[in-house]
């Protein structure tokens, strides 16, 4: 592999996640983008492409709105939408442009305003009280099916993904899932950019409001506002930059995006397992590292039930062994494979399109040795994972610079 084939993150920034009543999506995207540019030591004049995502307003052209806020240079913009994998998709798009040799620097941005958004995915087809039952839609339904034929709301969908894992392999319980949440909330107390930095006891988590068994409220990802952005370039470009830039640059050893291949039942309950496993396998091969070499992992814990299955899907444990793996303490910040030391989506928060870049920011922060109180000592390799239902999965493996 030559230097021009290598991809580096030169600059990256996330905003504080939480409630930002005085900032709109453009303000937040601009804060993250200008932060990433400054971190990279480049300006909009250097950037050759923007890939941007804002899922809840996917038709609004957030990329061009951002240009009008921070610099209109006439470069191509790709506005992307890929559910909760939107941020990773934006980054991957910028990486592909750099890798293709079309541009020197690519800027990826993800932003969301989600405070107070409530349940996502729920409600289905809106229908006025009909006078006469009239079949409509692909299933010829005479009434909304959400709540009558299963659930379309995310907490229940991911609850089933967790109980399905228990059905296949055993070892799961309400208490086990709650303990995963206890870990992430404890981790969040060290992260000043997390939406919530509140430690919960196991009892508090289990006795909180039940949303969809076994997920109580603190076991669900926190809807909040936030943005994240990154500047990427190739190794050849990096060589021409200052020692300081080279020292802080983070190598993207693997960048993979997958969708779910057909399997029995995958159109009935989304199968978030196979596409994650496929993405991870490809990423480990691209990077030439194995799961045991990871110093930290940020994975898509949109619900406590989801974190468990991804221990297995990312091959951090033996197949079927996720419950035992967690019970050994491996995924706490002092364990063998720290997972979600940022606090994860449950406490750091989940501004959808920002998440896929924010989790990469977290890994970079540790690889650069800049994570302060929550620094994982001597972190050299990390993995960031996101999944968007529908489905799309992004996995990035990142390595510390040798410079």
């Amino acid at each position: 592999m030559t230097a021009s084939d290598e991809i580096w993150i030169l600059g990256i920034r996330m905003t504080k996640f939480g409630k930002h009543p005085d900032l709109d999506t453009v303000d937040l995207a601009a804060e993250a983008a200008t932060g990433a540019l400054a971190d990279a030591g480049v300006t909009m004049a250097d950037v050759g492409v923007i890939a941007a995502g804002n899922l809840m307003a996917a038709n609004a052209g957030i990329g061009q709105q951002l240009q009008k806020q921070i610099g209109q240079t006439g470069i191509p913009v790709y506005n992307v939408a890929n559910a909760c994998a939107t941020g990773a998709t934006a980054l991957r798009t910028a990486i592909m442009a750099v890798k293709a040799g079309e541009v020197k620097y690519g800027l990826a941005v993800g932003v969301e305003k989600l405070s107070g958004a409530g349940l996502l995915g729920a409600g289905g087809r809106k229908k006025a009280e009909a006078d006469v039952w009239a079949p409509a839609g692909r299933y010829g339904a005479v009434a909304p099916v959400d709540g009558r034929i299963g659930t379309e709301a995310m907490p229940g969908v991911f609850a089933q993904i967790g109980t399905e894992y228990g059905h296949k392999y055993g070892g799961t319980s309400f208490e086990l899932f709650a303990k995963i949440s206890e870990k992430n909330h404890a981790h969040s107390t060290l992260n000043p950019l997390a939406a919530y930095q509140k430690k919960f006891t196991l009892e508090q988590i289990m006795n909180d409001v039940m949303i969809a068994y076994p997920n109580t409220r603190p076991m669900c990802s926190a809807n909040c506002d936030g943005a994240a952005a990154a500047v990427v370039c190739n190794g050849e470009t990096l060589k021409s930059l200052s020692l300081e830039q080279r020292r802080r640059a983070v190598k993207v050893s693997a960048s993979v995006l997958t969708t779910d291949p057909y399997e029995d039942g995958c159109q009935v309950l989304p199968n978030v397992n196979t596409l994650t496993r496929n993405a991870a396998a490809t990423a480990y091969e691209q990077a030439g590292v194995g799961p045991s070499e990871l110093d930290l992992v940020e994975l898509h814990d949109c619900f406590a039930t989801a974190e468990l299955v991804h221990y297995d899907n990312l091959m951090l444990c033996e197949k079927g062994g996720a419950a035992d793996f967690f019970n050994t303490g491996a995924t706490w910040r002092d364990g063998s494979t720290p997972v979600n030391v940022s606090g994860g989506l449950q406490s750091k928060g989940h501004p959808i399109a920002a998440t896929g870049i924010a989790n990469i920011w977290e890994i970079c922060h540790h690889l650069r040795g800049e994570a302060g109180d929550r620094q994982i000592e001597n972190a050299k390799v990390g993995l960031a994972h996101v999944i968007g239902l529908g489905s799309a999965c992004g996995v990035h493996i990142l390595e510390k610079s040798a410079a």
Partner: protein
Amino acid sequence: MAEQIPLVDYLVLDDGSPHLIAQECKACGARFFDRRNACAGCFATEFTTVPVATEGTVRAFTIVTFAAPGIPTPFVASVVDCDGTQVRANLINVEPDPEHVRDGMKVRLATYPMGTDSAGTEAIGFGFEPAT
């Protein structure tokens, strides 16, 4: 007797006892509950309508206690393995709590009335109930 209409078109009420139907790929046997131009698994384009087994096993569930406005809670959402065909459905005629709902429990298809419209047509919903 008043006319009946099923909640969805893959619930069959007028051909023997109530049952679900699926579109089965003639080439690989993959089953879908709505139309496909080609099979998602093997891309073949011919399908045949088949009945789905009315008994099955709960392979995933959740008890939803917080839902979108207008959806009565609690309810039990689940995926039932009906002799190899995965079916999304509510579990009904069972207490919606973790003491009464377990993964692996045996269930069977059941129907229930959803109400009658101004023309006198009764809508019929379905779910799965414990098979004792």
